């Protein structure tokens, strides 16, 4: 509904804009620096079995109505050869998470201002911290180490080039030494890998000649062309019909085994996650509120938001009289409360959620309730092991 913040005065807006420009300019300059010593961005993985580790990552948008903390202190990891599903409703920060990892946030207003994103680069535990990696180095990482599949393949395919040329292009970019013939045969091999039966025909076609499902297959072929260790799929099947969605999900599942990559699967569809993922990360208002194995999350959802989300979705074959609906709405992103972001909608609040005198009542910490299951909710404060609090960046210090 109506955002109070949209009624701020012109003078205030001008002030915010000026301040934003100062900050983003400096951050941009830093990112564009040449000859950055490796020591700035080289680091070590915490656990060599992970492909990526997000560690208190903060990505903010500096807008005219204030700083939108789209992702604010999130931590989770993607283990090797596994699929991690990231779920949440629109605007909760799923896409910003993946774009931060690719350094593809809309700049200059969007900036990753804090935390570490460690990407395993050689399997020996040597990592780079994407947050500090300069643009010039990043270009090499994208496509080679990780690549991305979007919801609407038509926007990422160039309408005036044939499919074959577009796949060739990507392979050539990352393997400049390869001969023309080798590139073509590699392209055909990729098209076959993603289940395109008529690969020679499709090689000669233009994107508009293909159906939505076929285009998404081509996008997957492009993403796989350089054998990345991580594929980021952002709502890859949302624009597709159910029977075509089933084909694509089936393909992704099979590919993971064939090419040894991990998948970071971003979706709002709990059904898709349950079928595809090994681990699930649930996001709400820019924070991770619960994470664990798929079994943890679906058989034992613990955060009141996760519980509400599961109850509000009708499930085929399980008839209920009335769907549960989570009361209220997500808090205003430029003016987040200093307590649990879900408290105003929560039906489970306990004393600790409010009791500031006793040292609680702030945003709840991450609490480990089993080896694999972590939840950010005070209800588990006494039974679980407190891991730490999300640590936002103070914009004044930037």
């Amino acid at each position, binding site marked *: 509904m109506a955002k109070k913040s949209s009624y701020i005065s012109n003078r205030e807006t001008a002030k915010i804009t000026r301040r934003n420009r100062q900050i983003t300019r400096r951050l941009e300059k830093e990112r564009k620096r040449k000859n950055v010593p490796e020591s700035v961005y080289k680091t070590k993985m915490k656990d060599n079995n992970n492909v990526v580790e997000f560690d208190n990552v903060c990505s903010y948008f500096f807008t005219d109505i204030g700083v939108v903390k789209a992702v604010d202190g999130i931590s989770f990891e993607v283990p090797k050869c596994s699929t991690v599903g990231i779920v949440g409703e629109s605007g909760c920060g799923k896409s910003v998470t993946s774009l931060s990892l690719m350094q593809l946030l809309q700049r200059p207003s969007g900036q990753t201002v804090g935390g570490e994103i460690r990407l395993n680069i050689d399997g020996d535990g040597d990592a780079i911290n994407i947050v500090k990696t300069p643009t010039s180095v990043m270009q090499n990482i994208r496509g080679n180490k990780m690549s991305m599949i979007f919801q609407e393949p038509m926007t990422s395919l160039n309408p005036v080039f044939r499919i074959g040329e577009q796949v060739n292009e990507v392979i050539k970019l990352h393997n400049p030494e390869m001969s023309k013939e080798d590139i073509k045969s590699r392209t055909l091999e990729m098209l076959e890998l993603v289940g395109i039966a008529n690969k020679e025909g499709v090689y000669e076609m233009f994107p508009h000649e293909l159906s939505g499902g076929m285009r998404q297959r081509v996008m997957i072929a492009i993403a796989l062309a350089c054998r990345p260790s991580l594929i980021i799929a952002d709502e890859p099947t949302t624009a597709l019909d159910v*029977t075509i969605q089933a084909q694509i999900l089936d393909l992704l599942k099979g590919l993971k085994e064939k090419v040894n990559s991990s998948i970071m699967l971003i979706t709002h*569809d709990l059904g898709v996650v349950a079928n595809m993922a090994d681990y699930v990360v649930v996001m709400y208002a820019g924070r991770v509120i619960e994470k664990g194995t798929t079994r943890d999350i679906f058989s034992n959802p613990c955060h009141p938001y996760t519980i509400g989300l599961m109850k509000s979705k009708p499930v085929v074959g399980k008839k209920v009289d009335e769907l549960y609906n989570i009361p209220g709405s997500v808090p205003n992103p430029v003016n987040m409360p200093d307590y649990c972001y879900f408290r105003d909608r929560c039906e489970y609040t306990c004393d600790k959620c409010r009791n500031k005198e006793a040292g609680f009542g702030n945003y709840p910490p991450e609490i480990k309730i089993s080896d694999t299951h972590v939840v950010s909710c005070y209800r588990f404060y006494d039974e679980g092991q407190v891991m730490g609090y999300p640590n936002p960046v103070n914009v004044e210090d930037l």
Partner: protein
Amino acid sequence: MANENTNINTNADTETLSEDVLVVRDLKKYFPTAKNFFGKPLGFVKAVDGVSFTIKRGTTMGLVGESGCGKSTTGRTLLRLQEKTSGEVLFNGIDIFELKKEELRKLRPKIQIVFQDPFSSLSPRIPVGEIIGEAVREHGIVPPEEYDDYITRIMKACGLQEYHKDRYPHEFSGGQRQRICIARALALNPEFIVCDEPVSALDVSIQAQIINLLKELQEQFGLTYLFISHDLSVVEHISDTVGVMYLGNMVEYAETGELYANPLHPYTKALFSAIPIPDPDAQMNRIILEGSIPSPANPPSGCKFHTRCSECMEMCKYCQPEYREITPGHFTACHLFNTPEMNAKFEAESKAAADKEKADEKDKVGR
């Protein structure tokens, strides 16, 4: 199905409040694809190609199928938002396509539609109170002195507050805009509402709010819905009966419980098995359909599903299956459920067609 209902509906012509609010018989809607030099169409997209069903008062019929199968076109045509190609649509026994302009204008408030996209269907420069009230005044739904109270009441019923009247659509979230659209339809005191993907653009938790609202309003005002959606779980939740469409045809229809427990048509089965279930332990016996959905401008011959059907028989390629009642209230169009006599007939027909095809082929090669 059309035949069984004929008697009831001849009565309905005289008695306006029959049990069947809506009867659709063999409705077709073709769109011309291109025109030649003289403005004559060269081909047609058969968006709706012979669809029949009946909706009882106070119930919801769900209409499911994948994009381009003709769900929306069915919804829009039966409200006469566009002209039909052929067939009949009876609303309370009155043929909507027989009505004169003025008669249709009078009927309009009774038959309403709510669209998927609450963003583009609300004009940005009109305050919400006016959006909801405009047509109420135009049609004189309530006496002028009751107007204000009436609008407030309708808004309350849809979960909106009185002070929202002076706000503009852009100040509202997606879910609340959909409430505005529903209030606008409801204010005209309709009997029948077509809901075309009303929750598809909304987040799960907001979807639940809107679905619950639609159900409440149905009880309170005795509304009848045609609920169009590609989301089979939402349709199961809200509908009493469900029709499944594929490329312009109704391929199966039954009561919701029966259809979901016992789907007959191979397409329905594949569609159901493709829904991802939010339970990692769910046994998935996925039927993964091959290929994409053919274009409705150039649909396959015979059974339109035969190019993707794993149970396709020879006759399926040449003969269109008959849409008929297999068990009481459960209709489907598939050769697997033919009677022996029908099988004999279709086998002969398909053999003749196949022979002719071979002969033509030879002809071509010979030349």
